[in-house]
């Protein structure tokens, strides 16, 4: 199976700073990872994904890095804004299922 965990339960940053959220996974056979954002009272929302044949993928203000050697991935958010405040989850594949980590609460201070 897959175990996915996050290094920090909370992260507080100043508006305009860059944010880095980390995630570790246990199953070396995992080959697809997704980052989700969950705002209070809502369902998770897709941010960005990465496949195991890549080590970096960029979106709009977000970058995901994958290090298969140490089974670690990170989500970088550039110029963090108040609207980025949410819980961020990483998820990894285990067969046809995704296994979610516990989440990191990102708080953006004005």
């Amino acid at each position, binding site marked *: 199976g897959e175990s*996915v965990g996050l290094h920090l339960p909370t992260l507080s940053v100043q508006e305009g700073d860059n944010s880095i959220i980390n995630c570790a996974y246990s199953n070396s056979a995992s*080959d*697809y990872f*997704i980052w989700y954002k969950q705002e209070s*009272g*809502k*369902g*998770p*929302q*897709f941010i960005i*994904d990465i*496949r195991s044949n890549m080590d970096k993928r960029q979106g709009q203000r977000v970058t995901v890095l994958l290090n298969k050697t140490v089974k670690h991935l990170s989500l970088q958010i550039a110029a963090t804004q108040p609207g980025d405040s949410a819980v961020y*989850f990483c998820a990894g*594949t285990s*067969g*046809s*299922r*995704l*296994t*979610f*980590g*516990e*989440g990191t609460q990102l708080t953006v201070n004005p």
Partner: protein
Amino acid sequence: NAGVTQTPKFRILKIGQSMTLQCTQDMNHNYMYWYRQDPGMGLKLIYYSVGAGITDKGEVPNGYNVSRSTTEDFPLRLELAAPSQTSVYFCASTLGAWGYEQYFGPGTRLTVT
């Protein structure tokens, strides 16, 4: 497209009661999933389906049942509700098993007292 819709949004059950959480998607997705999310925690997979007529257990299936008679609908049944089933329930769907994002519904907040 409405995406993934769930009903009801909120529900309070007494111990021992039963209910069905409804989930519908209009994206013609083959794969559908039910998760539960306890306060401050990640999502745990309850059941999933890879197509109409096919369902399989996830991490935490005990106390739940599902059916998938159509591509669009994936109801979750709670029999004999227990306080441990107090949670927020999310339904999700995706086009394929790998390399496709999951689209989530808005959730159903269930309290069992």
